[in-house]
């Protein structure tokens, strides 16, 4: 492993971070919509979103990336690989985050919604000012847990053919024939990204559990 190889890995690492960030931010926005639709009280809307979540939680992320990647090409959209992968990750994240946040919204005590209604707050204000801030706090450990899962999930972009950290490692290992060294370093890089988040999530979970007592 010379300096060139390290630079190549860093370029891959940059793409891993970019993919995870896009997936998390866009998936988060869409996921909020999914969570609100899932708790809207409208029967048909809840059924549709439940199906949406079920499909994404019942199929491998790799297949989702494949279907999005080739499906977009099919409808005539010639997109760069990173955009297609970002769209796939966004859809994936929206379903998982939607489900996590649905649970958090439902975990907010019912009295809160009732009190807000008694104060004649409309739906928008009820959600924005009363329910969602509390749900956000409840959801934080699970949300961070999913972010870790998403960062690890970006590695599947390598199979689709996009050069992020894992594929960069694969290419280098094919060149210098030291797979253990290269994948060891790649693994450590993922670990350095994910472990602080995992620890943060565990810390918040303990803190909230103590506060709830």
């Amino acid at each position, binding site marked *: 492993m010379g300096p060139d190889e390290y630079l190549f890995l860093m370029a891959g690492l940059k793409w891993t971070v970019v993919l995870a960030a896009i997936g998390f931010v866009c998936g988060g926005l869409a996921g909020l919509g999914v969570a609100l639709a899932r708790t809207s009280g409208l029967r048909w809307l809840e059924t549709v979103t439940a199906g949406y979540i079920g499909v994404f939680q019942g199929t491998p992320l*790799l297949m989702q990336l494949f279907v999005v990647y080739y499906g977009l090409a099919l409808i005539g959209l010639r997109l760069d690989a990173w955009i297609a992968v970002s769209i796939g990750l966004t859809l994936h994240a929206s379903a998982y985050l939607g489900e996590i946040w649905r649970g958090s919204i439902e975990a907010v005590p019912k009295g809160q919604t009732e009190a807000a209604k008694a104060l004649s707050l409309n739906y928008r204000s009820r959600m924005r000012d009363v329910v969602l801030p509390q749900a956000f706090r409840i959801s934080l450990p699970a949300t961070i847990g999913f972010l870790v899962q998403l960062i690890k999930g970006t590695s599947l972009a390598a*199979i689709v053919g996009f050069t992020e950290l894992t594929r960069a*490692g694969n290419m280098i290992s094919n060149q210098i024939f030291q797979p253990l060294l290269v994948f060891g370093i*790649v*693994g450590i890089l993922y670990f350095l990204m994910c472990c602080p988040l*995992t620890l943060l999530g565990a810390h918040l979970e303990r803190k909230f559990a103590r506060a709830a007592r």
Partner: protein
Amino acid sequence: MNYTLDFTPVIEGLPNLLLACLGTFLLALCGMVLAVVIGIGGVLLRDSRFKAGRWLVIAFVELIRNTPFLVQIFFIYFALPLAGIRLDPTPTAILALGINGGAYAIEIIRGGVQSISKGQMEAGLALGLHKAQVFRFIILKPALRAIFPSLTSQFVLLTLSTSIASAISAYELTSVSQRIESESFRSFEVYFTVTLFYLVISWLMMRIFAFFSARYFNYPVK
């Protein structure tokens, strides 16, 4: 947009795809068994008196949980031959799935064991049960019951992650579909159909776990 969907290659490959579904199922099943074995062993070592063993388990769990399965499977795939072990891709994939699932199983099972109050174990010992019997009947079974839901969702995730084993061309659904895709270039049709197959597989997995839950853990607690 003048593309017409053509499912002919999928229909022609159907026998192979269905057989590969079985491959995925078996791969997942073997992975789960190994994961449970590693999980129970890990918990015993984690809560044992050997300090080194405890730290080893903690390091193992964190290392596995914070790195992608794809990197793990590559690492194991290349590490085994260097260690002098020659394994086909499919057994290698089972090993990787078991190791990955085992790390999560340790955390889940440990949570279950901790949910059993100490008084229960003491009561078991006071009744003259052997230590192994206390573990099996008083700790393991109620703990399994408590963790069954999270174990189920973890194992559905494990089933879905078998698709990543295609990276080392283990015999399962994704690698077979990739072969059909590369021969026919009907990418969307193949992957769309296979996605539906996965949906059925994970649904079946959940049904099976629900069946076991109703069969073995359907006794009153209080």
